[in-house]
């Protein structure tokens, strides 16, 4: 069991990084609490796998420290870190049986035979491989192999954290749900710190109690799924989380009014943002209302998603998406209004707190 602290981590793969763009991880400070279930969410190339490999010690950071329970682990090799990692592609020792696979990390550490047998039986029970325990690992399916990888992580009594690197990539869709459910179950039973890297928001939001969103080598927001949805602190979070993502429209400020082209949306207070050139207005499609009043818009496309419809509109030359629930109709001449609780203001992509923005 371990709390993991990342202290001013920066990492570049090429030697002698000069410019900011040379860094795969620009600056990361983050604490993973003991026993937490975390997801590292972000697009390909955002640095999430690099961060995971830095925690497990497969990669050593250019700058900064990695602390486990306060102990500096930065220069410790992987095998001394009490970390388990499950990879994108299932890694099993083909020639061994399931049981031998699970016993392998313990045998390497010189654990007693009786103790190994006891631990292995427990883990077989946790990951649900009872029926396959004495089968050779070679012939198993991808999801069964992935369970073995997970089991090899769980089998060590001293394991501080289990890291997952997009573990469901090669798993069939119908097995994904099941495996994810068993991951949650394992987390509930063992209370091991788990960090789960993925680019799939559904996986991240259903697995983790805290989601760490990464973008371009930085952590842009850490929060519960609800926080990420309700209050994205960076335009990327708004855009990346939710389906469809947040509407982000360039805007300017005019006192307490937000200027969207020729129309204005009054804000509750005038934010002090003089001299901020890159102002953007963000609202999720769930908070866009279509009615007879507001800003005129034209419908360009409607997608039927079953329970709701996504209406793509053009407003002042900008694309806006709105959600229509079942039974709601598109007005003949649609006007857009924004639900005040869903309105956010971004300066240079970062959220600015504005009390009670409203739309007329």
């Amino acid at each position, binding site marked *: 069991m371990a709390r993991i602290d990342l202290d001013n981590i920066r990492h570049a793969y090429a030697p002698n990084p000069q410019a900011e763009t040379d860094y795969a991880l620009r600056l990361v400070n983050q604490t993973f609490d003991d026993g937490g279930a975390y997801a590292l969410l972000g697009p390909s190339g955002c640095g999430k796998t690099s961060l995971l490999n830095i925690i*497990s010690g*497969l990669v050593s950071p250019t700058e900064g420290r990695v602390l486990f329970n306060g102990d500096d682990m930065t220069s410790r*090799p*992987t*095998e001394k870190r009490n*970390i*388990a*990692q499950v*990879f*994108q*592609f299932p*890694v099993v*020792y*083909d*020639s*061994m*049986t399931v*049981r*031998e696979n699970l*016993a*392998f*990390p313990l045998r*390497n*550490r010189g654990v007693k035979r009786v103790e190994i047998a006891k631990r292995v039986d427990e883990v077989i029970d946790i990951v649900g491989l009872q029926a396959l325990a004495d089968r*050779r690992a*070679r*012939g198993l399916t991808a999801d069964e192999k992935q369970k073995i*990888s997970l089991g*090899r992580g769980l089998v060590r009594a001293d394991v501080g954290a289990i890291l997952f690197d997009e573990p469901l990539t090669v798993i069939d869709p119908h097995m994904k749900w099941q495996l994810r459910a068993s991951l949650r179950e394992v987390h509930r039973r063992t209370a091991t710190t788990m960090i789960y890297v993925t680019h799939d928001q559904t996986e991240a939001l259903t697995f983790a109690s805290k989601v760490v969103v990464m973008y371009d080598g930085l952590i842009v927001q850490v929060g519960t799924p609800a926080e990420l949805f309700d209050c994205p602190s960076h335009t990327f979070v708004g855009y990346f989380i939710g389906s469809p993502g947040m509407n982000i429209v360039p805007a300017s400020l005019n006192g307490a009014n937000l200027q969207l082209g020729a129309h204005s949306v009054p804000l509750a207070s005038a934010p002090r943002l003089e001299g901020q050139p890159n102002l953007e207005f963000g609202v999720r499609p769930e908070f866009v209302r279509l009615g007879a009043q507001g800003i005129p818009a034209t419908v360009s496309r409607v997608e039927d998603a079953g329970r709701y419809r996504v209406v793509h509109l053009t407003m002042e030359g900008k694309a806006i998406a709105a959600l229509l629930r079942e039974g709601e109709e598109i007005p003949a001449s649609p006007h857009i209004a924004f639900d005040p609780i869903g309105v956010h203001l971004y300066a240079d992509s970062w959220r600015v707190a504005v009390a009670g923005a409203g739309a007329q």
Partner: protein
Amino acid sequence: MKPVNHGAWFLVLPMLIIVAFTAVIPLMTVVNYSVQYVATNAQFHWVGDLWFREVLHSEKFWNALWRNLVFSGCILAIEIPLGVLIALNMPRKGWGVPVCLVLMALPLLVPWYVVGMIWQMFGRVDIGLMGVMLRDIGYNYEGDPIDAWFTLILMDVWHWTSLVALLAYAGLVSIPDAYYQAARIDGASKWSVFRYIQLPKMARVLTIAVLLRFMDSFMIFTEPFAVIAGGDPVFLSTELKQTVELGQKAAMSLIYFLIILLMSWIFYTVMTRDDGEPIGQGGAS
């Protein structure tokens, strides 16, 4: 039920004809000779299994067979581990890779007979570099069968270890990094990594290497012919060449062929009995 158009069989015909003329008919001709006595006036006489009995009762044949088996055994015992060892130590990236690959491939490009000539000269006790150097400890491949044997093995190792190394290397580089990373996390030793990751992943290519090296070394002819002109030690192939009777030659060829077929089958079955699992890979608890 859909009617089946058997006309498609005609498409197989050209292949069948080619195989018939290249393999089946020549083999059947040999079978035909093996049961006949060919008299000087080109008259054929049916003799049944006479030639086969003659071959199987010939001491020279059995001696040659044992020599062949021991020779192939030595070749495999040296070349396979040595090839794997070389492959394990070859660089994985950088300029060393092409340099190594080209250097390793060079011996494979040399024709058999030329290899024989190279070693014949290399080992000569009057002018050969190796021969002169080893002369003082009594080395002389022309006079001593053991020395000739030693020279032939050395020559085969020089010629063919690269093949094993290249095949093993191909197997090694195909192992994804995640396996090594997982092994580090599991605290595996270098030996465990070799035993449980590298060796099982190399098993398929090693099966091919063992089969190729077995068949090739078991059929060895050109090199002993070039080096020692078919003298001692006598292999099956050289023994075959020295046989005069056409029928006996044919019978011996068939026995030789069947032995190779049988041995290859045994190797293949044993090595792939658990989907490419190499020998001695059983339960390790």
